[in-house]
């Protein structure tokens, strides 16, 4: 039963939410203001308003390059393709692994899971040099494939943990009911377990996508050619050692955010948890 909320409570709750949202958005508004400002950054002021509003930075960043190719478009595609592939490969490998760990007796299960956890202890920087050498030997430097392989190697263990817990939360009764109803074990998995785990799978895929999309250190190490850059590397170049083009950095940051916001918008339906509730007793 939902409790009825009094008007005073409602006003108070909304006031708190407005403050929280303002707190979170204020820096973002500054980025927006910067992105629409000219070469001279806006003066420090309470209200983040652009000085002499212009679309120049956005066009500089997102438009065609001097040589007529659309470099930024290619870099944006690099980022999206790499992030999607990381999410797909990571979740694709993690689903069967997590299901097996959740349901079956596997020799050395607990030891294996601990080893998996141990791989997560090392910071990415620690593996950057060995990965560089490995990818070089494999001829995968400067390639999206190489980057996806590296990203998936860190997203898979995390995804396995997430999904194992999700599969464990799905009652075995559901699969057994499907098997009595005429399904093979695989059909029961495909038609009952996977749909029931959809919110968890969506969240896990989104996490993998986001971490790959935002990753900088490996991308900066493994990608040397400009046309292979992903967006974090591109953005970093705008505020280089000698010449900080903050308006370009801000414009780039805005464009970078668009795919992520779109993704969250599309995924939010799947992110609503509790799809399994009600299947068994309750």
């Amino acid at each position, binding site marked *: 039963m939902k409790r009825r909320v009094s008007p005073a409570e409602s006003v108070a709750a909304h006031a708190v939410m407005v403050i929280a949202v303002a707190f979170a958005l204020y820096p973002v508004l500054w980025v927006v203001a910067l992105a629409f400002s000219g070469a001279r950054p806006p003066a420090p002021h309470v209200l983040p308003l652009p000085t002499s509003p212009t679309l120049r930075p956005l066009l500089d960043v997102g438009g065609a390059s001097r040589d007529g190719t659309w470099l930024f478009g290619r870099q944006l595609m690099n980022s999206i393709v790499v992030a999607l592939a990381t999410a797909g490969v990571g979740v694709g490998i993690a689903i069967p692994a997590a299901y097996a760990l959740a349901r079956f007796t596997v020799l050395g299960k607990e030891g294996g899971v601990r080893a998996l956890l141990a791989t997560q202890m090392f910071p990415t920087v620690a593996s950057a040099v060995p990965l560089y050498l490995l990818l070089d030997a494999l001829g995968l430097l400067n390639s999206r494939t190489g980057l996806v392989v590296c990203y998936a190697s860190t997203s898979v263990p995390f995804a396995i943990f997430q999904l194992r817990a999700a599969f464990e939360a799905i*009652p075995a*009764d*559901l699969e*057994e*009911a*499907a*098997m*009595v*109803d*005429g*399904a*093979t074990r695989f*059909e029961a998995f495909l*038609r*009952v377990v996977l*749909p*029931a785990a*959809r919110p968890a799978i969506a969240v896990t895929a989104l996490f993998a996508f986001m971490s790959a999309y935002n990753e900088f250190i490996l991308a900066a190490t493994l990608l040397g050619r400009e046309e292979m850059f992903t967006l974090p590397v591109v953005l970093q170049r705008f505020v280089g050692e000698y010449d900080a083009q903050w308006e370009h950095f801000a414009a780039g940051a805005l464009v970078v955010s668009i795919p992520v916001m779109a993704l969250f918008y599309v995924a939010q339906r799947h992110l609503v948890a*509790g*799809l*399994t*509730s*009600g*299947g*068994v*007793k*309750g």
Partner: protein
Amino acid sequence: MASVHVRDLRKRFGKTEVLKGVSVEVPNGSFAVLVGPSGCGKSTLLRTLAGLEEADEGTIHFDDRDVTRLAPRDRDIAMVFQSYALYPHLTVRDNLAFGLRLRKTPEAEIAARVAEASETLGLGPLLERLPKALSGGQRQRVAMGRAIVRRPSLFLFDEPLSNLDAALRAQVRVDIRKLHDRLGATSVYVTHDQVEAMTLADVIFVLNKGVVEQAGAPLEVFDRPATKFVAAFLGSPAMNFVDVRIERAEGGFRAAGQRGLSVALDAATFGDSLEDGRAAVLGVRPHEVELGEGGVSLAVDLVEALGPESYAHGDLGGGAFVARLDASSPVKKGEALPIRLRTVHLFDKETGTSLRGAR
């Protein structure tokens, strides 16, 4: 429809032997109830019938078809789970149709069967809902519906009423039995509730520690329990047990207990098992007691008045004892109540087997 023949079934989980040679015969079209306390193996037996657990030893036949090693989907069974196990992402309609779709039943046929089942169970207004939008009773009906659309030769029920409140449970119990009588398919039903067992069953199997203690028609098992365990398990309030010693007296045998308890034993009922000096357990159901001078007196220490009847709690022959009395009986706490025992049971002190002679 099928008859079920289980022969000498054994199943162990790790070091624990859960089924220790169980044999069960269920005639075609009858309603069999497996009843027993938790851990007695009844659910394991049902899951082995379903094919969800594999038997270590023994055989299972449906009619003369050996299904012992068949996968669940090849057994032509339907099962109602304790948790209902409704598919959470499917509407009631799709839950009902799930099994038929897997078996590639034509859509027209599916629609007809779903309509028929929803008519039978009153699911019509719920068909487009998801399970999470249903009450417990509604979920239970959907689970039943999912079983009956399949038209299996055998229905399996795993404590289907245990998640319902008491009032609904009594109602659904009646509905299940009516449905069974209408469909005529063989049913095997697991419960730990002796009232469900008594009311639903054509044939009842009382399980204890992995073996069938007794099988038979419910009233026959109730009236002639083969062991002390069965006697204690069936009936509410439970049968009273008093330690006694069998003694030869003038005109036959008597059961003698502490505090001067002395009950005449019928030689025709107990036959050769009456031996002078044998240690035994006297069993008396609370409702087999009536007021009256019979040489037995109950030291009453509590009276529970339920309305139509009263329960007098007290001490008889050194043990706790409950007697069911008419509500009008003038009984007071502290009283020594003279009672007559209409029927007595006698069990071996060591083995707990009934001392009733073979009829």
